[in-house]
């Protein structure tokens, strides 16, 4: 029912963040590395997995906190499977999942059944997955799984329901577009991804959504909604053996399909041809800067993804030299570095907020400081140790929330595989300053990037700022 931001929201200012979460709810998984980590040995003690005969991977993550369980179905679908004529339809499909199906043929019956189960349910579409999940008291897991199975295997895609639901999705689009950051994100995204844009654009294209047909929905289902492209995750107060047996009973006869990516391969992401500057003006007070590079692809350059997360974590530490030079100096109100792990080129983003009068100097110093990360001794052992300590604490707290654990496992299973998730913390701990610098040299310093700036109305002229000038700040290419 929701689309997750492409890059996670910029949350450069502490107070800005505070206001954002206090009024708008909780930022989701896209925040990056911190929610997903734990030691492999410990994870392997708890996480159990099995592949059914039809290719469905079943992952059980038991915990004994409270007597509930989250049942999550994850499908390797999402924006990355969308050619331009399907832009936004992975998300619309996700909405249609909750409509009439063969078991619950009346429009309201499906949702009524969820209420009967006492289930809280929702769904999420991201770049490289779509997930459907519900949380129930643990004696209702079977009912919950059968509820999901009915939708998965019996969706009808009635034309009348599709016509209505697309209006709801367009309403979601209206909300996204009402955000002052929408145009900045979209304009940068088009430049960053070029012909791959529709495969990064989760919310999609208005005209595509408007003209959707039931046939397109069936095409998505037939291609991607097959057990050998899906995983079932059950996290919470459950018995693994009983859950495996239940999964076999309910989904074991779901027929295997062809490999969707053999039938419809995902093309390569085209490189950024040259540095570009982008200026958008909105009714805003602050200057928002968002600079993006192409980062590593998880399965092709796995080592770089670990270095990327440690690099970001160190620079984001309040006590880091990076924060000292940029934020403590007063040039920026906040700066956040992020790598978003994806299998088809994850973006590296540096975002922050400053004032119109400080913008030029802020950008120059930011790039100088990024270059400085290549200097010998920039990353100190103490900083890496602090990051380890922080990950240990964050991991311990992350394990408390079984429902979130299901989302975390689902994300990693779809993007790069469960194995990556299991090894994550151990690999992070191995990163050295040389690894971080290698990553920066390979993906950031001197590499083509897009610099987007969102200014208050009239500020571009007042500053005499041009997109060409923005593209030139930061050096090479």
């Amino acid at each position, binding site marked *: 029912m929701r689309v997750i931001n492409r890059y996670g929201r910029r949350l450069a200012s502490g107070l800005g963040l505070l206001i954002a979460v206090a009024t708008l709810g909780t930022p989701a998984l896209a925040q*990056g590395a911190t929610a997903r980590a734990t030691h492999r040995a410990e994870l392997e003690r708890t996480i159990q997995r099995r592949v059914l005969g039809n290719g469905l991977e079943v992952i059980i993550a038991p915990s004994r906190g409270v007597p509930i369980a989250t049942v999550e179905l994850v499908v390797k679908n999402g924006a990355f499977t969308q050619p331009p004529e399907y832009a936004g339809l992975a998300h619309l499909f996700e909405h249609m999942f909750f409509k009439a199906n063969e078991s619950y043929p009346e429009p309201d019956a499906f949702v009524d059944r969820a209420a*009967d189960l*006492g289930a809280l349910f929702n769904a999420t579409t991201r770049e490289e997955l779509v997930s459907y999940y519900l949380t*129930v*008291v643990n004696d209702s897991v079977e009912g919950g799984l059968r509820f999901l199975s009915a939708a998965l295997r019996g969706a009808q895609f009635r034309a009348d329901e599709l016509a209505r639901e697309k209006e*709801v999705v367009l309403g979601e689009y209206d909300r996204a577009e009402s955000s002052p950051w929408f145009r900045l994100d979209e304009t940068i995204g088009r430049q960053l991804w070029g012909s791959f844009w529709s495969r990064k654009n989760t919310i999609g294209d208005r005209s595509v959504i408007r003209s959707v047909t039931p046939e397109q929905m069936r095409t998505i289902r037939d291609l991607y909604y097959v057990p050998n492209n899906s995983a079932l995750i059950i996290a919470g107060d459950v018995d693994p053996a009983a859950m495996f047996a239940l999964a076999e009973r309910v989904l074991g006869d779901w027929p295997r399909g062809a490999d969707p990516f053999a039938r419809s391969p995902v093309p390569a992401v085209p490189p950024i041809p040259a540095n570009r500057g982008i200026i958008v003006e909105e009714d805003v007070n602050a200057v928002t800067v968002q600079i993006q590079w192409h980062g590593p692809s998880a399965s092709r350059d796995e080592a770089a993804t670990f270095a990327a997360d440690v690099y970001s974590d160190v620079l984001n530490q309040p006590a880091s030299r990076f924060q000292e030079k940029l934020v403590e100096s007063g040039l920026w109100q906040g700066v956040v570095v992020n790598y978003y792990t994806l299998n088809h080129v994850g973006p590296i983003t540096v975002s922050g907020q400053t004032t119109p009068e400080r913008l030029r100097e802020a950008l120059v110093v930011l790039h100088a400081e990024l270059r400085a990360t290549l200097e010998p001794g920039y990353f100190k052992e103490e900083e890496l140790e602090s990051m380890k300590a922080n990950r240990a604490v964050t991991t311990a707290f992350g394990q408390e929330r079984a429902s979130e654990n299901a989302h975390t496992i689902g994300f990693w299973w779809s993007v790069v595989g469960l194995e990556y998730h299991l090894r994550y913390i151990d690999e992070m701990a191995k990163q050295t300053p040389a690894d971080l610098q290698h990553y920066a040299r390979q993906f950031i310093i001197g590499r083509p990037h897009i610099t987007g700036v969102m200014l208050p109305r009239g500020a571009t002229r007042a500053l005499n700022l041009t997109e060409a000038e923005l593209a030139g700040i930061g050096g090479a290419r």
Partner: protein
Amino acid sequence: MNRSLFIASLSAALVLQAGRVDAQKPVESSNAGQVSARAATPTSSVTSNTTRFEVAGVRVIHRKTENNLFVANLYLLGGTRLATPETAGLEAMLLDLTDRGTQKYPGEQLRRAMARTGSEIGVIPHEDWTVFGLRTTGERLDSAWSIYADRLLHPTLSAADFAFVRDNRVSAVRQRVDSPEALLEYLADSVAFAGHPYGLSAVGTERSLSSITREQVVAFHREQLVTSRMLLVVVGDVTRERLEAMVRSSIGTLPRGTYTWSAPSVGETRPGSAVHLEPRRIPTNYILGWWEGPPADHPDVPALRVASAILSGRMFGEIRSRRNLTYAVEARFRDRAITSGGLYVSTTRPDTTLALMRTELRNMQLYTIPTKSLRPLIQQFLTEYFLDNETSGAQADFLARAELYRGDYRAADRFVADLRAVTGEDVQRVARQYMKSVRFAYVGNPSQVNRFRLMSF
């Protein structure tokens, strides 16, 4: 990034405890009776292994766990009741400022020492209190607590740090108007609770933050950081003896003061409906209105939670599922010392949508729902109750709310039983009694809405 997650988890607790049930359907399901036979009784209690005691004037609620985690939420009571329009946001600014250095950890040393612990300290302002929270693990507890306590007891509060923090906060609050959603939330509170402490922003306004002086902050720290204004809730793997010693040697050394916690007054400043229209050139319109409920310990509160969830489900079914006029429509319930409820929607057709919302509300008030059809909804509340209490932080918040709003942390255990006791007649009665005189804020195109439509609730 880590800090953001920490604050998010704290806030999530606050939001979730407010009792919102998203995507709720109407409860008059033909299969409503099916769940009645299922076990629906909490098998674990948020108050198990929990004790309450006082240490050197500090009221402490301690839930002993065995998972090596340690959460301390210090509730500094009073919230916006301690503020004026000129000082709103002062306490949060003070607590942020303590991150800039203390006697034991001056300047940069504090941030480095904190980083070494891997732990997190966060500040969450709220209308009834400000939470100063710590998240750490057993092996890091001593070092993290030392920093946490020193920030409370001996902050440096230097002039340069004050200027830095104030500038950042002013700038951040100025950006609140950049997001239509955030602006709506702020305006709706300002309109609905004008003249009442809940009408003040707990994080402050550009005007208030700009005018606050360092001297005011120093004086606030000296006069208001008193143990009578504190409730410390600890959920963690620590013995009572050790916890008592930690509190006695730190927070317990603060002056006692004379603060007495009480709920703010109800209804004194609410003459009836009101509307604020904020023009914005955006593709849709955001609408949020609040009605005022009874104090949190009033016996009508469980019925109001249920009524809000039912209304939410009905509006979702009619306005989103059947009419497709919106992506987001809901009725909210807000759990504060004085409860309130809200009506929220974003839509390109506000007049039509508001008329339908009005009809759904009227139907709630005119017709009695069979009590047996409430059961699926109660089952969903039960699921949500467990979901809300998965984490130590959420448990701490649940305990604090029971203690402060209902007078006893053990009232947390009555949450589900109280909901189960609600009848269809109760729902109709509270809908009539409280769901009225809604005061709306509207952000979008004013020409698309009839102002009187907003006044008709």
